[in-house]
């Protein structure tokens, strides 16, 4: 048996992880018979051809990883979204397989192992978009099921992007075997290779998240049953307790801002973490996906990314076109239309979200417009048409409308 390799490296001076990565396997494979023939698929492993080159492999691989990673990290099919927001992945994939998994999600609300808060990088987002978000998010983001891809790891907080494994005995694309040269090839051809290889990779894990089985599914991680391995009693208990505690002290932790989302006619509420979005567009898209089974109309369509104020015309579209309207209850307990204030202000003041039927919300829309225009003393042009009784031109009737709106 070889001398203690792992701990003993220290005696040589610096313990260098990458050295250790390569040397023990060298030594071990020499000591243990019959193992040298195989390629272990690990970075540190000897290739079957040339064991002396093995020690250089990890370093090479690492460099290659760093160089290549940022180029190809994003926009690839199958990039995955964090566990808690599986719906967001639908942004990119429009996958139908996720729907049967919806029933799981309510039980996961409020239960958020660390990585779940992370921002989704759907594979349809532009590279720069996602990079921006990536630098915002401190904790790890899992976007690829391929460990060869990683963002430059040392610049900021450790972020791991690519993980995955390559089942050795599946009928897989041999290019996926991670020897150095092949990694380069892999990366060049990454988009296609991943597309092709994923079915093979995923086929071998028929249970490893239902969404993995579908090539276009980026939300693989989200759907895995039984991960993280916490007893369901504990999960449920923490969920209940944090719900109660939110009501008790009303203050969510700095990292997460959970807001209940209800929808008229939906049988259950959802909870979203507002901090995972940076603008209204994302929020409404996410909600759209979340509640899509209840067929929201064009709720999210009126928001372009970055735009924060509803325009007159958009309001009109809203009123006349969509079935549902997104509203929120602010700190003062008033129900407001989402989209009127800058995003940051919205996050600060939003206590609850509600997806209302358009008809119910017309009063709100009118209210909002009236409030916005109060200083200018404009008339509500639409008030004439429908809500003469609710919204006449006198300023003090605004208060009545307020009451009506909050009662909705």
């Amino acid at each position, binding site marked *: 048996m070889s001398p*203690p390799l*792992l*701990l003993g490296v220290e005696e040589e001076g610096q*313990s260098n*992880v*990458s050295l*250790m*990565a390569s040397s*023990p*396997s060298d030594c*071990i494979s020499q000591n*243990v018979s019959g*193992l040298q023939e*195989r390629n*272990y698929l*690990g970075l*540190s*492993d000897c290739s079957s051809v040339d064991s002396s080159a093995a020690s250089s492999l990890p370093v090479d691989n*690492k460099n290659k990883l760093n160089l290549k990673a940022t180029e190809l990290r994003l926009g690839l099919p199958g990039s995955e979204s964090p566990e808690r927001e599986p719906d967001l992945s639908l942004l990119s994939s429009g996958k139908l397989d996720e729907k049967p998994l919806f029933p799981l999600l309510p039980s996961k609300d409020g*239960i958020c*192992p*660390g*990585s779940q808060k992370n921002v989704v990088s759907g594979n349809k987002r532009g590279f720069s978009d996602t990079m921006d978000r990536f630098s915002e998010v*401190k*904790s790890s983001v*899992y976007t690829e099921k391929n*460990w060869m891809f990683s963002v430059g*790891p040392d610049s900021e907080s*450790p972020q*791991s992007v690519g*993980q*995955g*494994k*390559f*089942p050795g*005995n*599946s009928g897989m694309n041999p290019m996926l075997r991670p020897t150095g040269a092949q990694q380069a090839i892999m990366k060049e051809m990454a988009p296609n290779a991943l597309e092709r290889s994923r079915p093979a990779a995923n086929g*071998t894990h*028929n*249970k*490893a998240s239902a969404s993995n089985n579908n090539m276009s599914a980026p939300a693989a*991680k989200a759907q*895995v*049953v*039984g*991960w*993280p*391995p*916490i*007893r*369901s*009693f*504990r999960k449920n208990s923490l969920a209940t*307790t*944090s719900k109660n*505690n939110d009501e008790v*002290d009303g203050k969510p*932790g700095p*990292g*997460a801002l959970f807001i209940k989302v209800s929808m008229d006619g939906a049988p259950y509420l959802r909870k979203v973490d507002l901090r995972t979005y940076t603008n209204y567009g994302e929020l409404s898209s996410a909600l759209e996906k979340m509640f899509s089974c209840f067929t929201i109309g064009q709720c999210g369509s009126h928001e372009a990314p970055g735009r924060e104020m509803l325009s007159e015309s958009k309001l009109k579209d809203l009123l006349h076109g969509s079935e549902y309207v997104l509203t929120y209850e602010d700190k003062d307990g008033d129900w407001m239309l989402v989209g009127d204030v800058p995003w940051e202000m919205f996050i600060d003041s939003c206590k609850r979200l509600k997806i209302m039927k358009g008809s119910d919300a017309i009063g709100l829309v009118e209210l909002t417009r009236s409030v916005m225009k109060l200083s200018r003393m404009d008339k509500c042009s639409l008030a004439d048409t429908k809500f003469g009784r609710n919204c006449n031109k006198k300023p003090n009737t605004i208060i009545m409308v307020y009451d009506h709106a909050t009662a909705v």
Partner: protein
Amino acid sequence: MNYFPDEVIEHVFDFVTSQKDRNAVSLVCKSWYKIERLSRQSVFIGNCYAISPERVIGRFPGLKSLTLKGKPHFADFNLLPYDWGGWVYPWVEALAKSRVGLEELRLKRMVVSDDCLELLSRSFVNFKSLVLVSCEGFTTDGLAAIAANCRYLRELDLQEIEVDDNRGQWISCFPDSCTSLVSLNFSCLKGEINLTALERLVARSPNLKSLRLNRAVPLDTLQKLLMRAPQLVDLGIGSFVYDPSSEAYIKLKATLVKCKSIRSLSGFLEVVPCCLSAIHPVCQNLTSLNLSYAPGIHGNELIKLIRFCRKLERLWILDSIGDRGLGVVAFTCKELQELRVFPSGVDNAAVTEEGLVAISAGCPKLHSLLYFCQQMTNAALITVAKNNSNFTRFRLCILDREKPDPVTMQPLDEGFGAIVQSCKRLRRLSLSGLLTDQVFLYIGMYAEQLEMLSIAFAGNSDKGMLYVLNGCKKLRKLEIRDSPFGNTALLTDVGKYETMRSLWMSSCEVTLGGCQTLAKKMPRLNVEIINEDDQMEFSLDDRQKVGKMYLYRTLVGPRKDAPDFVWTL
């Protein structure tokens, strides 16, 4: 062969208490076997399907305490369908029919019905102790039966159970004559409880040492209970919501100071986060603290509390304590032996490798670890291994599946390898993060005492599993999910499985054909294939991959209570 009369040998055997030792003793010769079996009082059955109740009773007629485990460990994580099995009724029924004077029943991951509890309560006059961990299937009606009928009940301990709360008055069912309670734990119950009845019960239980309340017990009741039971050693607080200026709170502070015997504290299921200063006087004597169900206590408050707990040996906590908090633990709790850090779900508060390294450096007596973290590095694990080679249980769960070392982007093979190499007494290991076959090579080589190994999303090929099966001679339980191990690994050493309690493989590469081959070769194993509801019927295609396979050694053949979706090959 005996130089002494049987009675003397039996008396000697009285001092042999561990089951392992008694099993060894029983193998020496026929006469020792007989003496041992007639005198054994406490029996542990690790897998309720490995043996039948009748045979257990037949061999150990003097049985007083029975411990049973039912479902495999991964059932805790919803990997097992609800009706898979693990019913305890047949056991209780068989025991009731026999002349066994059962006094203690401890169950883990089993299905217990109200009828079963009723039968239990009526069948054994001297029944004293019921401990249920992670069980299911009963309501408070069953508890009422236990309370009402077990006249000498000492211990009723319910841990992590979802009980259907019928809002019954089960606590009132303890008769006035019941004064023998030593331990009462109903912290997992969600419903209301009759507070007056509870107070009276505690008042007439002078031997009460352990009391764990559920969230329905408010602060003022807690204070009254503590007044009645200042001798408590183990306290589980239900609701700790109060107004700091209220009389109830002031009274409680005073009462807590008087409870000098409390060594173990848990609960805080409902808590006002601002101030736990009332607890501080209790902290200095605490050896066990479980705040893992108290997400309402923020990190800073936790840290303040910990600073008082110099004698702590066991700490269960949420990761909201953060790396900084773990640093405080490392500085303060030099007697720490067991640490469990659970994920609270709050993003920023999660712990990393820093916390673990600090703990390993600061707590020399630590030997049992369960650690959920955001990330881990090889360097950290190697440092931990160097700092501390005492680990007997090392369970690491990196929340991000298959995450490599974020600094080097390497798999975590080396880190875990260092752990198994350094910790020669390691008995239980759970892996996570990105792992290749290499880590299994290390485990096979170094983890000589390993008894239980949990693998998820790891490895590259059959080799990984083979290293483990070949190398770990003492392996008893192996559970694998979502790893690329297939038929070759499964079938290379079929005899191994009879030396183990069980093997679980789900979402791996084993096929139906492979499992069938195994079942044919090893008739004393039950090889169960568990089909999900939405999967197809049992097709006869040998090449079809098996979703879930659970195999275990057994002396009684395929179980008769297997539901339709379980196919014993």
